[in-house]
């Protein structure tokens, strides 16, 4: 293995499209004459498309009737945005925040709650991290997934507090079990306005159905000692104290660096970026993003294809590559196809988010790349490598891969093999 060569300009443009968006959008690649233009297109913040038609059901029965259909509707709408959005970076960051603040439809099986949660992620995805954290910490879906609504002064449930510290802010090693207990006590009293399963009447008249609300009777009013600070803390206080800790900014910055560059960041760079992020940038996400992608490492040969492509990213690229042959709207079951393969929106395996790198190279997930082709109609028999590869954002292949694809006996096999090639398996 020699030193890595600098990729061609087309390949670099493709790298930018697939890293900053959820797919290697061939239209973006074609539109961008050079790396600078590609960067600009990928970082564009266009207006949001209208959301799906999702209404909070008024009763438990209505919820039971259409809960899962709504989950699927929201999931598909989200995937549609990944395919069609003119703001690739919003899709990349929305997914990144979903991975960070992971919740699963297997527990939160109510589409309107997921839609509300997704709206928060999208609204702040390119905005302000502190605002995102503050709003997510009081979101029904997030509380529901982490049992935050079961946490009362008489029955402390540590799940929400522990994961908030371990996964969403400080990271393990930066707090003690006593801090977890203090955080849990401070976060007591939150509930979700569910309708009663028998009467259908919502528990509270003061807030909308399914919305989170605070019940002071269940809140622990005693003094808590959290990270060395004593006070009658509440959930909001815990969030603010966590934001004050350098560990929170450092953790988020390092994670975003890995997401965008695919390499391990240097310690001093993280400390300096984190200090700007929580300091002069006031938690604004886009200055952090542009600074990270402005690092020479982002366009370095080492960063090219350093990440394993997820089944979801493959799927998004498929719809972008062959819009006349594959349409997501005609395949509502596609969401379940991805669920079955084990990588889909609102389907993280646990609160720590989705698998990555080697975990996505398991044989089962790898061979079922072919199943992702289900929604595609038969490729045009006249297609050649010149037609197919650029559509998939593939501009540089090993000579072995090149030979293999050139000698594919049919256009159909060419498409399938390119889609399942080692080059396409990485971003």
């Amino acid at each position, binding site marked *: 293995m020699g030193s890595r060569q600098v990729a061609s300009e087309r390949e670099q443009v493709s790298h930018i499209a697939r890293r900053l968006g959820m797919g290697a959008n061939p239209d973006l690649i074609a539109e961008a004459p050079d790396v600078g233009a590609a960067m600009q297109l990928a970082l564009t913040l266009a207006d949001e498309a209208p959301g799906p038609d999702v209404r909070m059901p008024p009763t438990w029965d209505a919820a039971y009737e259409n809960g899962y259909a709504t989950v699927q509707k929201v999931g598909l709408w989200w995937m549609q945005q990944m395919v069609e959005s003119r703001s690739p970076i919003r899709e990349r960051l929305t997914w990144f925040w979903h991975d960070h603040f992971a919740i699963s439809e297997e527990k939160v099986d109510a589409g309107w709650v997921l839609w509300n949660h997704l709206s928060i992620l999208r609204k702040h995805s390119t905005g302000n991290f502190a605002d995102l954290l503050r709003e997510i910490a009081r979101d029904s879906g997030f509380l529901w997934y982490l049992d935050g609504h079961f946490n009362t002064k008489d029955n402390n449930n540590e799940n929400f507090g522990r994961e908030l510290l371990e996964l969403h802010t400080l990271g393990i090693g930066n707090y003690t*079990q006593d801090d977890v207990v203090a955080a849990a006590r401070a976060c007591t009293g939150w509930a979700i306005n569910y309708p009663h399963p028998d009467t259908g009447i919502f528990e509270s008249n003061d807030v909308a159905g399914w919305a989170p609300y605070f019940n002071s009777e269940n809140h622990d009013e005693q003094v808590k000692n959290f990270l060395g600070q004593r006070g009658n803390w509440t959930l909001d206080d815990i969030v603010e104290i966590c934001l004050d800790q350098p560990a929170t900014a450092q953790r988020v910055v390092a994670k975003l660096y890995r997401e965008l560059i695919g390499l391990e960041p240097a310690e001093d760079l993280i400390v300096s970026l984190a200090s700007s992020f929580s300091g002069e940038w006031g938690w604004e996400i886009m200055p952090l993003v542009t600074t990270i992608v402005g690092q020479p490492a982002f366009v370095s040969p080492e960063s090219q294809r350093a990440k394993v492509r997820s089944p979801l990213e493959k799927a998004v690229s498929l719809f972008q590559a062959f819009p006349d042959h594959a349409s997501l709207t005609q395949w509502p079951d596609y969401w379940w196809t991805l669920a079955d393969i084990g990588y889909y929106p609102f389907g993280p395996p646990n609160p720590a988010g989705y698998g990555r790198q080697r975990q996505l190279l398991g044989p089962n997930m790898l061979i079922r790349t072919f199943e992702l082709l289900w929604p595609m109609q038969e490729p045009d028999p006249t297609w050649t490598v010149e037609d197919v590869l650029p559509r998939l954002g593939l501009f540089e292949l090993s000579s072995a891969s090149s030979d293999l694809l050139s000698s594919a006996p049919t256009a159909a096999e060419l498409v399938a093999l390119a889609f399942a090639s*080692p080059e396409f398996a990485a971003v």
Partner: protein
Amino acid sequence: MTTETPFGPPAPPPSNRSSRLRVSRRTFLSGVGAALALSACSNGSGEPEAGSFDAASSTSTTGRSPVGGAGTEASEPPPTSIAEEPLEALSVPLDQRTLVVVELGGGNDILNTVVPHSDGRYFDLRPDLAITDSIDLDGEIGLHPELPILAELWAAGNVALVEGVGIEKPSLSHFDSMRRWHDGTDSPNDTGWLGRYLDATTGFDDLLTGLTVGVKPTPAMAGTESYVINVATARGLAAELPDWLTDRNRLIDSWSRFAPADMQAADMNLVERAISKTAAADTVLTDNLAPLLASMEADGTMQSDVKSTTGQLRLAAELIVSGLAPRVIYVHGMTDLDTHSNQRGTHGAMMYELNAGLGYFRDALAAAGMSDRAVIMTTSEFGRRPAEAGNGTDHGTASSQLLIGGLIEGGRYGEPHNLKKLDANGNLGHSVDFRSVYATMLDRWLEVDSGEILGKNYATLRVFA
């Protein structure tokens, strides 16, 4: 790793593996209760669907064997013992043995799995969640009422219960604890304990030495010189192709020929190797799983049922009886035992799935005369806190592990949990390092030097007859 492995000649390629049966010295299945168990397991529709842990649906299904009754008589527990010197060889040849690790992910509540029903403190700590109708094993402990088949296996002397298993300085974090259970080392490691076992034994030469049953390979099997095949369905690795791809064999053959030849990035080598190894394992697995696929189609079991612990254990059993006989199968990733809330229903449903899976497993191996060939070992990242919190329990520390198999000397090992002596967080202490159980399996069942694999020598347990 040592140059002289106890493996002798390298394992034959998968297609040449012997599927001849061998008469068992002991049976995995006690005669008593077998028919009951069969009737309990053949009704796939009685299983709760994954993700719907409604208490009512998980505790009121029909077609199950009655709780208690047959098979609850306790066997004489052997004294707790730590092996001091090599023991005589086991009666099953090494190349016919399989270790089946069943990961009860999320932190299984051990106190409601193996219930200390003679200890009043248990009921004091759990006024609402205590199990009051456990299946008594020995007058002191009992099993969750949804585990009648496990009780039968216990009565047959095929279950070693290792009590008080834990990790040093537990962090109470899922991810830190899981990482430690997967790695088997004190500090973080890119490889898992079974990955290092595979590296040290067959490596890339035999892809089917270690298999994961689950949608992703377990980190416990991550190695540097080996690649883990994982299967999630009874179709093995046979992807269902769109209908415009008509020549499956030709396609997979072409796919397998993507070669690492002149790629520059190390990660790409990994991708290419994964592709070629996957393609190579594809047909072998599909052939071996064909009978399972047929029987599932015959009894109307849905493919999605393979995602339950029941289905996963059924799949694991088929991998053994079909003659593939992998050394290690890791059942990974389908349980969610993180019962902070609604514990009674959720935990009960999971115990029901585990029990039904044990039934399939036991019966399939018994029918093939292979009851002595497998040892099931349960793991979980931690036990749950003894005191209940609302309708659930919080993260805890020590747990117990089950070792189940025809050659296992049934009984209790380690030290019973002491509910009198809880730590500052209200959690249990441990008496057995989890690596002692790993070392026991590595040294005795897989016949490798556990010290090499685990980086340290741990006392082993005398759990084999």
